[in-house]
């Protein structure tokens, strides 16, 4: 699948490089064309943080006649935007007030219902359901051609909840999405740790998607490449979407694909591209290499 990092001017190799990209990545039409090209060359889904930028891209994708449907994998919440809001609005209380106002303005009744309950009880599960209902409805109302396959919990939230042993939060997230026929997804920087915890907490690993870094140089593979590969072998079935596979541009696509082809239980790969040429070449390489026996 194609990822949205370049559209948010994110490069994990170099912030400077991301800032200096000359392509018009902030233009939803340009981004929609890139996604279209990737879909024509082997990608079959789009993963993105839910933001004004990506909602505008979804609307542009809808206008392209040659696209009939796209699998969508939104990541929630768009943590960095919220961290920035928190900085400007005075921390968590300011952020909660701002989100409450946005939600009321949106008139999304399901979310408002959970929100009122959450506000009265201050129950994190109700607050989470409020937020998820709001974001799911925001994505669905922006596209006719997109199909919501999975919703991924942002890495920062997943890993914070893992560190704090919030098994009940993971289970509530799992149940809430499963009841809506959406596969619960988790983006993590601690894949081995997550696999072990989910196993202990009896969260069915065959019914989730896990997005985690896998690459030849061990970039962002915590605590080590060997531990992550070992945990991958123990998965009951392919449920892992490999991310950071190019180590943010450090590894050539062919080498990255060769490495992934040696791993078991990889269901897919998420890649960000910023140029039309790369959208064609990169996805072709991965499709060809990972489809071959």
């Amino acid at each position: 699948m194609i990822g949205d990092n370049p559209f948010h001017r994110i490069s994990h190799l170099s912030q400077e490089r991301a800032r200096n990209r000359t392509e018009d990545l902030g233009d939803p039409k340009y981004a929609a064309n890139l996604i279209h090209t990737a879909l024509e060359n082997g990608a079959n889904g789009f993963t993105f943080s839910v933001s004004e930028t990506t909602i505008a891209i979804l609307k542009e994708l809808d206008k392209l006649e040659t696209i009939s449907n796209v699998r969508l994998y939104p990541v929630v919440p768009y943590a960095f935007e919220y961290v920035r809001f928190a900085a400007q609005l005075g921390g968590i209380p300011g952020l909660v007030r701002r989100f409450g106002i946005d939600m009321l303005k949106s008139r999304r009744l399901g979310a408002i219902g959970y929100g009122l309950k959450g506000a009265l009880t201050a129950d994190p599960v109700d607050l989470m359901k409020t937020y998820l209902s709001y974001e799911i409805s925001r994505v669905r109302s922006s596209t006719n051609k997109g199909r919501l396959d999975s919703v991924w919990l942002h890495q920062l939230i997943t890993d914070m909840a893992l560190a704090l042993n919030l098994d009940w939060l993971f289970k509530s997230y799992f149940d809430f999405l499963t009841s809506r026929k959406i596969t619960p997804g988790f983006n993590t920087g601690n894949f081995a740790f997550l696999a072990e915890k989910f196993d202990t907490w009896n969260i069915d690993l065959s019914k989730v998607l896990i997005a985690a870094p896998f690459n030849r140089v061990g970039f962002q593979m915590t605590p080590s490449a060997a531990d992550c590969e070992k945990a991958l072998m123990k998965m009951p079935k392919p449920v892992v979407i490999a991310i950071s596979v190019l180590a943010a541009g450090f590894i050539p696509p062919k080498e990255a694909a060769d490495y992934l082809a040696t791993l078991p239980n990889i269901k897919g790969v998420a890649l960000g591209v910023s140029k039309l040429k790369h959208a064609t070449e990169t996805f072709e390489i991965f499709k060809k290499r990972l489809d071959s026996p």
Partner: protein
Amino acid sequence: MGTEKLRVAIVGLGKMGLLHTSILNVIPNVQLAAVCEKNSLTRRVFKKILGDVPLLADLDGLSGLDIDSVFITTPTSSHFKVAKQVYESHLARHLFIEKPLTSNYDDSRELCALANRKGGINMVGYLRRFMVTFVKAKELLSEGYIGEPSSFRITAYSSDFVGVSESTEISEARGGVLRDLGSYAIDIALWFFGGFQLRSAENHSLTASGAEDSVLFSVYQEPNSLLGTVSVSWCEEGYRMPEVVLYIEGSKGAIEVSDDRVRLSLSNGNESVWFRHSLNDNVKFWLGAPEYYREDEYFVESARNGSVAEPSFETASNVDLLIDLIKRKLKKD
């Protein structure tokens, strides 16, 4: 300390408090013993999240909980008051304070004196000292790869207040750009080169009249005539994350280091570049960035072993001294 766990309390459950709380909960030999947060809405939301960990409205509640170490992650303006109470009420021996130490040099000196009298380990959270790229650059400089340094330039930029107006209340609560983002740049300059004299300073108010948003200052060091310029702003476009870049010019070459990479350029034309993944950046648990875990683990081990942790209050107070001098100069000019 043997096999006993270090009992830790967090004071202030904002962004940084939550991050430290989570990381400390996965560090072996640490027991999260209490959290203090004065905002009642935040306390209500986090009651279930923290489970059995006591969630207190004020510091007095820490008394009797047998706390070894307190992490202060409240807004800068309250660091001094909270730290003073921890020491004077004997609430804990060891203290970690998120950067900067306090909101002025006088308070920092008083806190240093208090810490010296009380003993225990103390440290300030200047994160870039635990970032593999900056550690590598310091090593290259110390080993003489670029010869004698003649000048340096530091930029510390974020987009936190881009497009924001009339926000002096929030920006002041964060201590102005110098204490917030500039303190990182100043700590790096002091860590790499030692003490300085201030030459010039100018401020540009961008969010509101009189706001400290974008500061440019220069320093020099006798007797080696080292010159440095530092530019700090939280109103720069395109900085999704705050970024600090240091460029050092030496007699045999130059070093450029950012959060992502280190570049060594020698006068003979040779160049080497290191990215994070070639610098052994892995940690046991990754939250936010690897250096957060490294920083907390280092402080915990220092407290358990009774070894000095750097940057200590004493070291970090020098950052507050330079900030006060810059602020005084800005007011005077």
